[in-house]
């Protein structure tokens, strides 16, 4: 069984030997993909599934976008009716493998029944696997797919290399996967993910959510429509999770200007209750705000006080993602630009220039408007202050002009890889014994 490190190894640079004739290329035209649409290729079509901490994407290979895309916290509410009757919270963390598997069974069966509309036993599955996925989760997903749903075969595609495929070249790239639980920086060179040099930071989507909620609790004002009170602060019961998620996904922008170093001491992820930003920092934010109005209004349904108007200071919308760029010194968490620079420092010397010239930012958080450009600016600033200042001039974003959304790039890349019949680590139903899965550490024979 080949290991994931050897997957896609055909894409490496050639040795200086003779090439074959170029007549292979002559018959290739744009029509090849059109013909595959006409003739279906349904037997070779696989189902591509990307299960993350927060979202699930599923669809068919050969499609440019997943047919099903949902947020997991609302999905797990499906098992809710009896759980709610017994008083169990449907959003509690899973405590055991069995429970994780049971939830995955419900989830995947529902996806097959309502969106994929195929018999699970007829189509192979390709899983998009990120670099730091826990072994227990991999095993649980494989057991559910092979054991319960009885798919004939499961293959694992590395998310970083697949995402880089959507840019057209897997020669070199630094893939920054900004997910919900962690941000992972993976260098990819010659179609191989260089896993020993991976860095990560927990300042990701959930940290952004907590920070935003803390800022709103401390600085936003709420006016209930029913009462005569002018406004009140956003105490417990005003902000529901739906409202904060809506603000996070639709209303945030990343400011292009970083705060100066001395003001950053009080920056940190708000813990949801209190926010300890210093007054100078708030003043800096307000004076450097690019928003045209100081306050944004939003009509919301609060938890306990009915409908009302929420007034959000516009600097919160611009600066909620600030801890992701500047780090959290209080909790000793490094920022995303720091993680990128650390990864460059770990990577082999002769790959660094190629890697930093191709920084691909993927993941749901990367869809924040202005996020990627601000990230690049901060990386350039960090590089200039570090030992590798010569690299600062080469830093550039990859895939900036393409039409793929950052959150579906890994999925689309895997769909490409499957449709182009690029093979990888596979496990079939007969050979799976229920407890061991081939891993990237498996040694090739």
């Amino acid at each position, binding site marked *: 069984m080949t290991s994931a490190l050897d997957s896609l190894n055909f894409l490496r640079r050639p040795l200086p030997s003779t090439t*074959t004739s170029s007549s292979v*290329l002559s018959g290739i035209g744009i029509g090849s993909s059109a013909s595959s649409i006409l003739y279906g290729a349904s037997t070779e079509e696989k189902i591509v599934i990307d299960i993350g901490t927060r979202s699930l994407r599923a669809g068919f290979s050969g499609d440019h976008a997943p047919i099903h895309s949902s947020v997991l916290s609302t999905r797990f509410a499906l098992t809710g009716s*009896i759980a709610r009757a017994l008083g169990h919270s449907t959003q509690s963390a899973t405590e055991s493998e069995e429970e994780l*598997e*049971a939830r995955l069974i419900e989830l995947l069966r529902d996806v097959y029944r309502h969106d994929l509309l195929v018999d699970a036993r007829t189509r192979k599955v390709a899983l998009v696997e990120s670099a730091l996925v826990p072994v227990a989760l991999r095993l649980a997903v494989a057991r559910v797919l092979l054991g319960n749903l009885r798919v004939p075969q499961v293959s694992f595609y590395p998310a970083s290399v697949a995402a880089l495929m959507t840019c057209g070249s897997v020669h070199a790239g630094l893939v920054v996967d900004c997910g919900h639980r962690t941000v992972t920086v993976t260098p990819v060179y010659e179609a191989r993910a260089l896993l020993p040099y991976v860095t990560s930071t927990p300042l990701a989507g959930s940290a952004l959510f907590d920070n935003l909620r803390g800022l709103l609790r401390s600085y936003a004002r709420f006016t209930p429509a029913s009462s005569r009170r002018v406004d009140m602060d956003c105490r417990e019961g005003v902000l529901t999770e739906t409202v904060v998620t809506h603000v996070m996904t639709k209303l945030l922008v990343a400011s292009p200007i970083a705060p100066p170093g001395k003001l950053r001491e009080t920056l940190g992820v708000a813990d949801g209750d209190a926010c300890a930003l210093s007054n100078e920092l708030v003043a800096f934010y307000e004076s450097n705000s690019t928003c045209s109005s100081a306050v944004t209004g939003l009509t919301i349904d609060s938890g306990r006080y009915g409908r009302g108007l929420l007034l959000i200071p516009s600097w919160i919308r611009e600066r909620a993602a600030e801890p992701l760029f500047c780090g959290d010194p209080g909790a000793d968490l490094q920022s995303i630009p720091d993680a990128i620079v650390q990864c460059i420092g770990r990577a082999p010397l002769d790959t660094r220039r190629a890697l930093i010239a191709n920084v691909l930012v993927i993941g749901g958080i990367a869809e924040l*408007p202005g996020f990627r450009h601000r990230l690049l600016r901060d990386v350039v600033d960090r590089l200039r202050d570090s030992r590798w200042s010569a690299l600062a001039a080469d830093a550039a974003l990859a895939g900036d002009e*393409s039409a793929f959304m950052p959150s579906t790039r890994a999925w689309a890349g895997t769909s490409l890889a499957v449709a*182009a019949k690029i093979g990888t680590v596979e496990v079939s139903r007969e050979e799976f014994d229920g407890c061991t899965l081939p891993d990237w550490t498996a040694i090739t024979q």
Partner: protein
Amino acid sequence: MTDTLLPTVLYHCPCTGAMRHSDASNEPAEKRSKHSNDTKGSSQSERPPVDSRSALFSLRVSTLENLYYCDDCSSLRCTRCVVEEPAGYHCPNCLFEVNTTSVRSEKNSCARNCFQCPVCTHVLSVVESSEGERPFSLSCAVCCWNSREIGWEFEKATGISTQIERIRAAEVAPREYSALLDYWRTVQRVSTASAAAAVGAGSTGSFKQRLAVPSIGVVPEYKAIEGSSDTEQAHVAELVALENADYVSYASDPRCKEPQRIRLHMKLARRCCSCHHILIKPMPKAQATQFKIQLMAANFLPTITLPSRLSLKYSPQLLEGPFAVGRMLSVVLRFANPLYTEMKVDIASCLSGDVRVDVAARQFTLPPFTELWEYDEDEDEDSSGDYNANSDQRGGIVDRHGNRVAIQLSVTPLVPAPNLVIPLHITCLHIDDLVDGEKDGSSMAGSKPAGRKVTDSFWVYAVLGKVQ
């Protein structure tokens, strides 16, 4: 949130979830023996299979209406362990049946003019207006939304889905995807061709040692497609100028302003996971809601309920508020026999630190089910001479009526809990007198067919209410 709801009785399905140990043929020997020891142990000991306080509980139990029964294996099956397969596709709006091969080519949505209004999700209808060269558009009868507002106007009234798909396929993302696919297919083709040519035919190890792959020199570099404008700058500008955010919709899909095609509905046939016997088979016609084969657990296993009328009479504390720790509570459970043959029921409670359960009626017989018109009130009173009312009371049986028997349990909760759950192990024995023609072919003439004995045993959890 722990609301005290009406008490219910939940049935436990013995499926183990993802990987049954019998499915994994090459599982290491230690694990397999551990599994078999566990199952042997649980049938002898009195431990319930799932702890009612764990979060796994709600994922393993269901009400009886949601369970299936395989009569070959004589066991319960739940929605999580049956094998589901498609048994027909149709559009839920126009009820047009779609065959399996067309489902994928139509992207799992209805190929005719079935669209959902983006505002109110009602079905849109095609209307004709008098103006212009594109008279047809989609309109909603409920909220008066019209597709002209987003610029969707059509020349023909039919095949609107095809026209929309053509527009969508001409967008940047699908074109870029096909360009990338062509590129990677070329690279793959060139690399396999050169690898096969460079190394001899006999060496099987060559595939794992792909060396010189002249892909970069031969295949031209990929160039991104022109035409994808930078929408991020425009988006940033829009957000920066935002003053009132009310018009920003909560929908996560960027296409939320456009009508969505209605997704097809798949009829499912269900099979037992171990013997592949069909449990549920729906009629293939889209309009038909009946089933050709319907093996529901309620038709084979006794229905256990907490009857309200009898509870009022025999266990009034059940319906009032939270229970007190240490105080004995009497609970009435009623068993109803769905079969046409008699059924013997054995009940066993388990030892638990949370609650003490005393079952007086450990064994009783359930009379067979009779149709309503055969039921005669006078006949019932006469035949109850078999069952002496006094001995019934001592034996814990409080009521008998037709095919139903109600028994009384004494329950004493020992610790406070948000919900008092009593696990009970039920074993039912009945004689299946349906003659299987192939098996009993030899003993046909004159002799009474000896039916087979069917024993079902399962765990039941009675959810009662809050304990303070």
